[in-house]
């Protein structure tokens, strides 16, 4: 089973995946590869940042254990990490074969996590100028929507992850509300999606509606993620865990 992490450059794809492997987990445990090994491959201690993904598509095996209401479930997944570079049109034109290989890999994936950066107007921490504007963000998603409709109409699950949540919301408060427990949570998946969608994704509601209408995607679901709040970080994987492996 393939799960792909995709997104533009510098949205935090690799860091998000790396932190998932952190052993200080709640209900999602990465049993292979070990966090330290992964960290040595993906993180530069010197620069204190993740190392940019050089290869266009890097496929790693990821063994996960997710704790669901019915019990623990082990999943072996192909984690497809992709460089943000390949979303540039110039790159696609210069590397048609590599682009096609990448598309083929994506089409075979059961789930895609599209990592999105927040837009300037919602940033409350740090320098908002480092982020694209609301309008640019909507335009960019419009292109994502067209891409999924054209290239991945048979995808099973598309998870939209608005990353770096610590820069635009009170992550403690959101995690308390959205947090998951296999023994019963405050909100169910539908309610979580409604909350996140209404609060953070309404600028692109039309595009999401189009995706639901024009593709066979079973679910397009919205999440907020950050490496700084484990409860939010685990949610997309718990969601996928409920569906995969049957």
């Amino acid at each position, binding site marked *: 089973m393939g799960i792909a992490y995709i997104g533009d450059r510098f949205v935090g794809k690799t860091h998000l995946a790396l932190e998932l492997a952190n052993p200080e987990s709640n209900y999602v445990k990465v049993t292979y590869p070990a966090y330290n090994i992964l960290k040595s491959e993906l993180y530069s201690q010197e620069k204190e940042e993740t190392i940019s993904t050089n290869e266009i598509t890097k496929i790693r095996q990821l063994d996960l254990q997710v704790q669901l209401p019915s019990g623990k479930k082990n999943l072996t997944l192909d984690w497809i990490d992709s460089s943000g570079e390949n979303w540039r049109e110039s790159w696609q034109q210069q590397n048609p074969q590599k682009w096609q290989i990448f598309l083929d890999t994506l089409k075979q994936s059961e789930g895609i996590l599209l990592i999105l950066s927040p837009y300037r107007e919602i940033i409350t921490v740090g320098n908002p100028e480092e982020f694209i504007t609301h309008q640019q963000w909507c335009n960019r998603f419009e292109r994502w929507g067209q891409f999924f409709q054209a290239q991945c109409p048979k995808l099973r699950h598309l998870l939209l992850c608005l990353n770096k949540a610590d820069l635009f919301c009170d992550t403690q408060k959101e995690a308390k509300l959205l947090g998951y427990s296999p023994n019963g949570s405050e909100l169910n998946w*539908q309610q979580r999606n409604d909350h996140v969608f209404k609060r953070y994704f309404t600028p692109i509601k039309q595009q999401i509606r189009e995706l*639901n*209408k024009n593709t066979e995607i079973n679910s397009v679901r919205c999440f907020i993620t950050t490496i700084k709040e484990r409860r939010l970080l685990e949610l997309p994987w718990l969601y996928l865990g*409920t569906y995969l492996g049957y």
Partner: protein
Amino acid sequence: MGNIRVIGPREAGKTTYLSALASFGKKDKQFSVTPINDDSKKLLELAENILKGGERLEPTDAQQRVDEIPDYLFLIKGKKGLKNYKIDLNVKDYSGEIFEKLAQNNELDEKTQDYINHCLMKDVSGCLVMLTGWEKGEDRKYKKAFEHLIKLMDSRQRLKNLRLAIVMSKCERGEIWPGRIEPKTDLFSLHLPETKELLEETIPAKNLGFFAVSAFGVLGKNDPRPNRIDEVGRNGRQAVLRDTERWQPYNLLEPLYWLSGV
């Protein structure tokens, strides 16, 4: 062993029905339903992890070959006055595409023929045909599918010896909930009269039953609002469970009990 096939159009709620059955079988006052094999236990997991989590099940894979369809084995046991009663059921759930191809009335492709052959095998005791539409236009579509199915049953000498449980699913919907008590009269005669007439003309009365079921149920005895929320999805609106705590399906067992021929 009662071999049962479940067919019906896409989104009729076939797998959701079986999943609810696996999950709620223990709670029925007269019977217990126990999932026996890995496939049927997976149905239980789907109910626990997905339906109770406020999500919907994925559609059954239309690409799978007939030999890839899971076998759902259930043991049904009577309780109280029915203690000696025990049946083993082997249920197979087909993708909705099969039924829709019947409705198109064209020559069937090889895969659909495999499915039909499998569905009408000699050791199959009955089919649970799950329908969901009651709106104008649905009756004609269903009638076409049954005309085709009846021809195929006849060609395989199954017209007089195969039970058909015609089930209106999702009867928690406000428009049809009041008709659940007498589904033959208040649902099928009213909303699907041509289909009903065709079936009554061609299938022996002892082999034809009309039922109403609801995998989600309503919010309570004194609160008949459907325990479902509709959300926008593929093919229009799709329902998910509204309140897990108050989940109480309606009448899941009756059609299977009847099909088992006891």
